[in-house]
């Protein structure tokens, strides 16, 4: 990935604003005083040890998890208990999961057209044309009529990315998209994500792929024990980490 050209950024208005957000699972305080502002077009990589709350944090952004204190404003809409707001946010925010979560009873094409047809009310033919376009972009148009169970892990994850893109989201969330993949399939998924970044998509990725972070991110966030410990641009973050825990974490994942 070092050969890839560094992605240049052109930042716009605020896409996501998280202000003094807290979350508890029962009595367990998982997220503590999270403050984060993401400009549109920005690409953020979130890393940290397991159990540090990074997945929980991005799952709060589309309300797969509910926060108990503080504010989250996505694309100008505040996330409250109001279902209308939640649906409005989810229409504009795509998500890619660690375990793909494709619908196994539907073909690849049907996976991609389902949300446009039922949520955006796109006519079927048009939705299929758009889906084929995105499947083309993730380089698997020939698999359109197969079922997810017949594809490899890397192909399934690329379908999942295409499926999210079919909703033409303004923001994409990636929750450890390569953690469940065999090593030789990681690159094909990362390449797809890099392409997406080059097109200016606003992205938040929870990942341990530090090469990807160096190539694509314009900010790297380190989380531990439910807090944002450090954030910086990738150069500073990797070469000159300030916090002790960040240094420990980086030494553990980079030197082996």
């Amino acid at each position: 990935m070092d050969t890839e050209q560094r992605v240049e950024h052109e930042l716009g208005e605020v896409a996501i604003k998280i202000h003094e957000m807290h979350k508890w699972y029962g009595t367990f305080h998982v997220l503590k005083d999270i403050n984060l502002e993401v400009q549109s077009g920005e690409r953020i990589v979130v890393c940290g040890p397991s159990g540090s709350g990074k997945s929980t944090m991005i799952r709060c952004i589309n309300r797969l998890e509910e926060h108990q204190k503080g504010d989250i404003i996505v694309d100008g809409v505040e996330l409250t208990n109001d279902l209308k707001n939640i649906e409005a946010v989810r229409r504009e925010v795509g998500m890619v999961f660690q375990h793909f979560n494709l619908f196994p009873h539907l073909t690849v094409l049907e996976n991609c057209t389902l949300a446009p047809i039922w949520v955006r009310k796109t006519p079927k033919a048009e939705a299929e044309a758009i889906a084929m376009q995105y499947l083309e972009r993730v380089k698997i148009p020939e698999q359109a009529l197969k079922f997810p169970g017949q594809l490899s892990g890397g192909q399934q994850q690329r379908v999942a990315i295409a499926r999210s893109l079919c909703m033409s989201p303004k923001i994409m969330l990636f929750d450890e998209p390569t953690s469940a993949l065999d090593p030789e399939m990681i690159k094909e998924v990362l390449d797809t994500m890099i392409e997406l970044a080059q097109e200016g998509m606003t992205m938040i990725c929870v990942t341990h792929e530090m090469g990807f972070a160096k190539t694509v991110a314009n900010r790297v966030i380190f989380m531990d024990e439910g807090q944002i410990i450090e954030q910086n641009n990738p150069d500073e973050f990797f070469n000159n980490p300030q916090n002790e825990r960040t240094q420990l974490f980086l030494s553990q994942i980079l030197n082996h």
Partner: protein
Amino acid sequence: MRQSNQGKQQYEPGTHPDLPPPLGTTGPIKWMRENLFSSPTNIALTILAAFFLYKIIPGAVSWSITDATFIAEDRNECRALNSGACWAFIAQRWGLFTFGFYPEDQRWRVVLAFVLLLMVIVALLWENCPGRKVLFKFALIFPFVATWLLLGGFGLEPVATDKFGGFMLTIIIGVTGIALSLPLGILLALGRQSNLPIIKYACVGFIEFIRGVPLITLLFVASTMLSYFLPPGTNFNLLLRVLIMVTLFASAYMAEVIRGGLQAVPNGQIEAADAMGLKYWPAMRLIVLPQALKISIPGIVNTFVGLYKDSVLVIVIGLLDPLGIGQASLADTKWQGLSTEVYLFVAIFFFVSCYAMARYSLYLERKLHTGHSR
């Protein structure tokens, strides 16, 4: 390619062609070796089973077919003619077994309703059925057409439901119960998982109460006690009460079967649907239920078969299902002592219908398999 010393063909790396398998590792010989003669115990069991079949089959065939009587006026004539089964009895009571006491000149209506039912069932179950779309629309009005045909009115001679009986009654109860208990069971199962406490506990209470009471008790309640609860003078048809009770009973079981299926659908599926902005009902209908129902097919068909066979319990409240007809017929002095034939006949009827359901469910499971494990 070169011949080695042992006469074994050698190939360059990467050029090995596909060869046929060695003899005896495929086909019927392999099947017999694996399934009938794989071990000493297995060989002994195979021989024992063959011996029993040899003893039983000739006797069964001669009793039921070659030595049987198909046309006779009464039991004594049967006995005089041949030593085997006396199917003449069944043949003579065929109408009774099929239609109960439905007036003979009106039985074409039952036959017509049955033919229409078959058309609807074929259209529902067979994907490549010609005219499927039209038949689907017809399926929606079929219940009303069938009710009209069977009960009469609007130009047809009215027939009271206490004249219904035999296989016709079984099929009415079975089909109604099956058609209504599935959607009702789905709603109850979804209700049981609801976040809204009122809906959740109403469903839990209903399911646990109905499951905890024997069907016979419910039928007795339907036949006797309901009239105490209802305002005096209301005449609430007994068959309708039975249909409601059988449906409620089956739907409680169905709900639990489907709940098992719902729990087997991974949470990630619902998260993916949520993340796309799908609302609750589309998410359930398009994502969760198709998977849950597929997993539940064996349990659903099990419940169907149970419901269908439980319909004979209506005998206890005086409705004449095939068993009831059989018992009533056996009281005829001309035909005494033929219970074997009657019960065998009824058994075969039930077996054929239930086996058909079982086979279809297997076919459906295979068809819905899309290459994912689960």
